[in-house]
């Protein structure tokens, strides 16, 4: 029987995120209509969503996370920020800058959304560290592409997970040969036979 070898995964998603195994996206937009749409786009793509109406609210939310940043509060951890560019008060660009210059938040990928296709604007945002610049209205395909990109760091883990799941359904021995080098990881539904185990 093939031994399942688990590679050390990059720290894009913390271990306890795996218990929910969903991307948590913070969406920032002053438009109520757009917030509702982006929320639905993300939920239908199996993401957890927190939608706020301004840059300052977003920072508030992220700042609270920072204070509580211990194992117990991993549920609040944000994996991606999607922000509108044109907002009253703090623009999406200003929010991007604040995040990228923060010691605690700079690692979070930020995507800018805008209805205006202005080259200089796009360049400025990318230079400031934005992961991507999406033209509004945002489509399902945009969200899927983003999600795939963010999860790419977990690609090798996902492949192993699929293989492991297939083994379970094929009736193979559910318990891994080497407990210290494997984890239970089921993004869609709880594994009935094997208990969830944290990575050692």
């Amino acid at each position, binding site marked *: 029987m093939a031994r399942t070898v688990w590679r050390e995964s990059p720290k894009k998603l913390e271990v306890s995120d795996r218990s929910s195994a969903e991307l948590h996206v913070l969406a920032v937009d002053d438009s*109520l209509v757009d917030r509702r749409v982006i929320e639905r786009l993300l939920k239908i793509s199996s993401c957890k969503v927190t939608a706020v109406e301004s840059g300052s609210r977003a920072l508030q939310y992220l700042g609270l996370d920072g204070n509580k940043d211990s194992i117990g509060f991993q549920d609040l951890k944000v994996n991606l920020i999607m922000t509108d560019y044109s907002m*009253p008060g703090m623009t999406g660009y200003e929010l991007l800058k604040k995040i990228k210059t923060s010691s605690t938040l700079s690692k979070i990928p930020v995507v800018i959304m805008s209805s205006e296709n202005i080259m200089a604007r796009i360049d400025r945002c990318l230079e400031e560290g934005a992961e991507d610049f999406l033209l*509004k209205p945002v489509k399902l395909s945009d969200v899927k592409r983003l999600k795939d990109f963010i999860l790419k760091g977990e690609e090798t883990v996902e492949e192993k997970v699929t293989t492991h799941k297939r083994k379970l359904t094929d009736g193979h021995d559910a318990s891994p040969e080497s407990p210290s080098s494997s984890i239970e990881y089921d993004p869609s539904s709880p594994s009935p036979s094997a208990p969830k185990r944290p990575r050692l």
Partner: protein
Amino acid sequence: MDGVVQLQRQFIDYTTSLYEEKYLDEQFRQLQQLQDESNPDFVVEVVSLFFDDSERILNELANALDQQSVDFKRVDALVHQLKGSSSSIGAQRIQKMCIAFRNYCEEQNIEGCLNCMQQVKNEYSLAKNKLETLFKIEQQILAAGGSIPVL
């Protein structure tokens, strides 16, 4: 049942005309794709949000344009909001009118702005009527036990 088939045909014809006359564009179809059993009223919900939001914006626009000294930046900001939300639901004619409106704001052309204001109000009324009619036909189909055709 004859009734359902007739209603479905009416729905198809009406929807087709809305797309042909550019009241709606591809984005509306995208919204429909986001609707499912877990969120069966999503489109109606978002469009209702759009109606409320638009009415607020139109009131504020009327107010802003009524001032002795018109704040074109403010007018532009409001039109930008309306352009954004109409684009998000696929209300193409409103969106296009907003683009023209913003040009007049940039030129600080009060006549042009007032003209566009009227046209935007008209387009909004038309779009609202058409969408409400569409939703009504949908309800009738469902009430008669039929399913909404996918276009």
